[in-house]
């Protein structure tokens, strides 16, 4: 069984910092794209609001509640995608998101770590509609 780095590795200071002080928290007025979803396993919930200028993500905000992993991952994601093109975000792989997160995630917590990107991609897909 893969033990990864243990919980001290999982709950590193920067993860707890993003959890306690999420970046880009909140909502946008009249967002160009928005979506909300939850992880039925644990009830984590995340909403993403996106403002798009040209083909770029001009601003992004997230609101939600849930475990440290899902919230910190969403917070880190918002920092990473600002200024990127919509196409770049649409092509962002799960692996890239996990790499950006920088901690090793066990299989049962993957859904938590990937909820943010799933919601963001859904928002963009819906806009494209």
């Amino acid at each position, binding site marked *: 069984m893969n033990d990864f780095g243990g919980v001290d590795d999982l709950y590193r200071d920067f993860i707890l910092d993003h959890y306690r002080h999420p970046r880009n928290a909140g909502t946008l007025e009249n967002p160009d794209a928005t979506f909300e979803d939850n992880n039925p396993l644990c009830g984590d919930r995340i909403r993403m609001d996106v403002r798009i200028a040209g083909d770029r993500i001009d601003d992004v905000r997230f609101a939600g509640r849930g475990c*440290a992993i899902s919230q910190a991952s969403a917070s880190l994601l918002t920092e990473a995608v600002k200024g990127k093109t919509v196409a770049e975000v649409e092509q962002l792989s799960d692996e890239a998101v996990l790499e950006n997160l920088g901690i090793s995630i066990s299989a049962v917590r993957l859904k938590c770590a990937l909820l943010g990107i799933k919601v963001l991609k859904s928002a963009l897909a819906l806009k494209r509609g």
Partner: protein
Amino acid sequence: MSARTLAASPGLSDGDVARIRVDFPILLERPHGKPLVFLDSAASSQKPLQVIGAMDDYYRRYHANIHRGVYHISELATEAYEEARRKVARFIGAASAAECIFVRNATEGLNLVAFAWGRRNVRRGDAIVVTEMEHHSNLVPWQVLAQETGAALRFVPVDDSGLLDLTQLDTLLDGAKIFAFTAVSNTLGTVNDVALLAARARAAGAISVVDACQAVPRMPVDVQAWGCDFASFSGHKMLGPTGIGVLWGRLELLDAMPPFMTGGGMINVVRLQSSTYADVPARFEAGTPAIAEAIGLGAAVDYLEAVGMDAIHAYELALTRIALDRLAEVSAVKIYGPPFEHRTGVISMTVGDIHAHDLATILDSEGVCVRAGHHCNQPLMEKLDVPATTRASFYLYNTAPEIDVLIRGIEKAKGIFGIA
């Protein structure tokens, strides 16, 4: 280690529990190099060697299909399967073995009632009453039945302390055909007064359907004393294997019900255009059943009876008392659910603002298995206004020192999250 020992506890002595633990090989496992502290029996219990052995024995010595072969080992298998049914019937106080239908799990048993009894007897304008503390398995089948028939779905509310609020019960039951409720809440540990609820249902002309999933494993159950009409429970929560459960129903109700699923094993005479159906219980056991699992469940019943359900219940309450007292001393721990007198061995909690999943992950690193989430109880969680709780549940193989390990794990989580 806690100064409290179980020597003074009612039910089972330290020696009894030590002997019981030897029967559960999984308790020797060391996840993350730590002794396994299994506090999630409300989700699914562990299995003693006697259960594993009974199934193994069937597969090695007399596996054959049942009610079909005329040869010796098929007779043995048939007899073992039917003996398991008789054991279960005796265990829950059924009037006859025929009243016990083997299903896959409690969920299937509840669906069976909703389909076979519900679709025949419930009409537009009727009401179906459930409670706000139901597991999704005892909620969604009734939602679907209500949608399909046009019946109204009504809810008995849960008060702030986690007890059913019965003040409006008679009004709610007015015009009801079905009152479905749990004997024990899997989220809050609340023990409901089944006999009282069943009597109120009967007085209102409704049948009572009891979700007995959390009751049958942990307390003596007598369905005739309950006075209900149906009760459904799962084998895997009562030391038995997965894939087997029981729907108990009053014979006269079962007799009048059409089949749920159809095919082999449940027929009487089959013609090309139509068939007649077998008697109860075969009518509700279409296809080859879970034979090994039924035999395993029979062995689980033997095990529970040998230890004694009164003793198991008393011991579980003793552990619950200890856990509630110890947790009350831990700052930032919030316990949900009613006072001790209304509880059994299920404790839902939050610790500061640590999310349940994070707490469970940290406890897991200490070898402690707990459930984290909404416990298939989303409407109740919304009412409590918590995103998720962490749930510890106790069974006959747990010990007071394991509660200390739980508390140490909680302290570790508080340390990581910087909670005083």
